[in-house]
């Protein structure tokens, strides 16, 4: 079975610093794929490269037969890759329902002219997306909060809303960036179930960046470990758990050895960009 999402020798420099070095991933359809590593390993950068937020310096990224590298982020979303963000990014002034409806915009047939004329197409689109959004909100148990401001939701619900919004795109691949951050043991257990359920129900492929080993080890089929931007290990959760390189990389981080979750939200060290303007040079 060939891979759905394929990264080949992907490399990214920030100035002189190599944030991601020669990373290759082959993620099979319907897999739940884990991307782990210590802080600053370049996991989120890999997500940003896949979604086009950063430009890849070397290598190729493909979704099925589509080359993603030349596409803008919005086009990559259209191609079927949806994501969530490490530090939740919702549309604060918009209601919960509207957050989802924005994501429906890209499958719209009716254009702006149609919106002004309030044509039949416009109504058909609006009705369709409204129905989809409402059923997704039900699925994520946010139905009764549809008209609330998205900023008024609790932290956990904001995470759920972000996933629901991503699902509104009907993606082929869902990239989850630390969905368990800040969750306690029980919530993390729930998250594991939800991820599997999402994969089965929506015929998804899930890529997971996560520090919570309880979640990663419990839900992933395959895991790739990064350290300092370089791939150091790849395999099933059992193989990774006993890999010496991985243990060395995580030295001092007991969570892996114990297979237990840590509910300290992981803060990625800011990668200093030497390109950034020096104050006044």
């Amino acid at each position, binding site marked *: 079975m060939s891979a759905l999402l394929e990264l080949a020798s992907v490399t990214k420099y920030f100035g002189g610093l190599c944030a991601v070095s020669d990373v290759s991933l082959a993620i099979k359809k319907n897999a739940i794929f884990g991307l782990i590593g210590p802080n600053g390993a370049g996991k989120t950068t890999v997500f940003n490269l896949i979604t086009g937020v950063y430009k890849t310096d070397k290598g190729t990224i493909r979704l099925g037969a589509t080359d993603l590298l030349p596409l803008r982020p919005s086009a990559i979303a259209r191609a079927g890759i949806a994501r969530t963000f*490490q530090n939740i990014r919702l549309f604060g002034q918009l209601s919960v329902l509207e957050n989802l409806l924005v994501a429906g915009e890209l499958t719209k047939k009716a254009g702006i002219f149609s919106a002004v004329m309030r044509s039949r197409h416009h109504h058909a689109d609006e009705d369709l997306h409204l129905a989809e959004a409402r059923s997704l909100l039900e699925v994520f148990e946010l139905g009764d909060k549809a008209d609330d401001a998205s900023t008024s939701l609790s932290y956990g619900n904001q995470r759920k809303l972000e996933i629901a919004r991503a699902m509104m795109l009907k993606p082929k691949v869902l990239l989850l960036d630390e969905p368990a951050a800040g969750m306690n043991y029980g919530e993390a257990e729930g998250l594991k179930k939800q991820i599997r359920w999402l994969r089965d129900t929506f015929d998804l492929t899930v890529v997971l960046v996560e520090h919570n080993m309880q979640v990663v080890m419990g839900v992933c089929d395959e895991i790739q470990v990064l350290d300092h931007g370089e791939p150091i290990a790849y395999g099933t959760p059992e193989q990774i758990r006993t890999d010496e390189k991985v243990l060395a990389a995580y030295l001092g981080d007991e969570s892996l050895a114990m297979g237990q979750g840590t509910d300290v939200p992981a803060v990625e060290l800011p990668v200093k960009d030497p*390109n950034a*303007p020096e104050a*006044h*040079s």
Partner: protein
Amino acid sequence: MNGILAPLVTGIAQGSMIALIALGYSMVYGVLKLINFAHSEIFMMGSFFGLFALQHFAGLNPVLATALAMILAMFGTSLLGITVERFAYRPLRGRGKSSLLRITPLVTALGASVFLQNLAQLLFTARQRPYPRLFAQTRPLIFATAVVVMIALELVVKRTWFGKAMRALSTNEEAARLMGIRTSRVIGITFAIGSSLAALGAILYCLDQGDAYPTMGVGIGTRAFVAAVLGGIGSIPGAMLGGLLLGVLGELVKFSGFEGSVDIPVFIVLIAVLLVRPAGLLGSTRAEKV
């Protein structure tokens, strides 16, 4: 050959003066990421302060009178700059990045500019006031002043505690504050320096070009801002380079017999440069952390 030399010399003089004003935009942008629209009006106020001072010192030796006028005008505009910052910008700081708030600093900056311009209109009337002709040749003075200021500023930014604090603030305000830098004070000093440079530029400009009037800031201010953007906003050598390019370009355009306003080609060059190098000639972009 001689024909093209004259516009070049004029252009360099003009350009170094534009650069002095451009520095104010650049410094404030570097620290606050804000287009300080009021800067052009501070320039205008500077020229009035200078004029009044020169009128007061009319009997003195021209060099001494000019020096005193410069000091007084620089002091006056510094106070003005700090006041603008205090009332129009500081209350907005630390409010986070909510959508509605993103353009608010631009709006208050524009408001401050309109406020000052109309205040001048009321206080000084709209008429043009001629500057005394103190020197036969002002161009060497302009050029020399600009170069000295540029070097001094570069040293301040690179070598002093204040410069270090300013650069830290520019990179990450929150981290700078956590490291014990008193950000409000650094920002205030930045405004003071930028504003006093505007006064310097204003007096040099008026000695060279003649009149002070309330709407003078609009044209020069816009050109200086374009220079700052062209050179790479936030960069001191960039402001100098942008100013010189603009000055020379303007004079060459006049020399070529172009019938329209000099601003048209200047503007076209700006858009062309931004298309190729969005951060300006010497600037650099920073990717947003996601």
